[in-house]
């Protein structure tokens, strides 16, 4: 099976929103629960990588990214190493997002360890 591709702009929304579902539409919490985690579980069970394409949106706020990806460690209990090895981030439009997401994953891992 080929790697699984998750394009936020196509599979979720072109205008991703805030952190929590009760704060508004297209939140990070909603994205993690309805798109990201199911695709990640599918990728892990098929031993393929999950490619997350961050391009095509009208902007990704810190809370959305942190809740989506940091939340995988904080809320869903995924191991940092598992995420590092199995998720690949892509962004040609704004590569800063890749650095950001990697930082949020690391932060969530470090905070969980404390």
């Amino acid at each position: 099976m080929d790697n699984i591709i998750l394009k936020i702009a196509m599979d979720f929304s072109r205008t991703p929103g805030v952190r929590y579902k009760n704060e508004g539409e297209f939140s990070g919490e909603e994205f993690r629960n309805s798109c990201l985690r199911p695709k990640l579980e599918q990728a892990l069970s098929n031993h393929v990588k999950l490619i997350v394409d961050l391009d095509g949106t009208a902007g990704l706020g810190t809370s959305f990214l942190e809740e989506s990806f940091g939340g995988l460690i904080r809320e869903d209990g995924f191991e940092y190493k598992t995420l590092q090895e199995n998720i690949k981030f892509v962004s040609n439009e704004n590569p800063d997002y890749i650095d950001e997401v990697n930082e949020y994953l690391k932060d969530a891992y470090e905070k969980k360890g404390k």
Partner: protein
Amino acid sequence: MKKKENNKTWYIWMILGVILGIIIGQFFHKDYFQLDTQISVIEIVDLLVTVGLALYVARILDRKIRHEQFTIDLFIAKIDDIESQIKSIENLIQEKDVSMQIIYTKFHVLSIAKNSLLESISSLLKEKDYSTSTNEIKNKHKTFKLIATNTPIDKTDTSVVVKNGKGTYSVQRISEIMIESYALKDEYFKLKVLLTE
């Protein structure tokens, strides 16, 4: 009025030049000056080549300098545009019930503009200046975005209250954002100085 004054100064210089020419000319009538009235073809060619080269170099250099100045002006205009985008974010976060999506989009556009600028100025700065300046700018951008678009994980934290996708920032958070945006603008000012040096 100014043009007339310039013309007047020009005439004065011309008259002075003619007088100086006459005085120098008088020396050629003295014995200790020998004026050769003949000139060889080689000397003429040499003279013409020298004058031609001087004109050519002057024109090419002038064009190059103008081109460099134009490029610098272009980048400074780009920095001005980035600064005005930062200013617009500063204004936006002070409003009540501001659309968080608009803030995210503004940061998205700002980040793309920053990346495009930093990529294109690399050839204009010394390597050390470029790497110091761009690293500082990148770090300040990161902090600025973090403080302005990170809403609290802890739901009891009221530094940014979000409802229906609209947020209201606390006075303390606004102050923190303003401090970071000032620091970022300061880095762009330093970059402008480097570009004009």
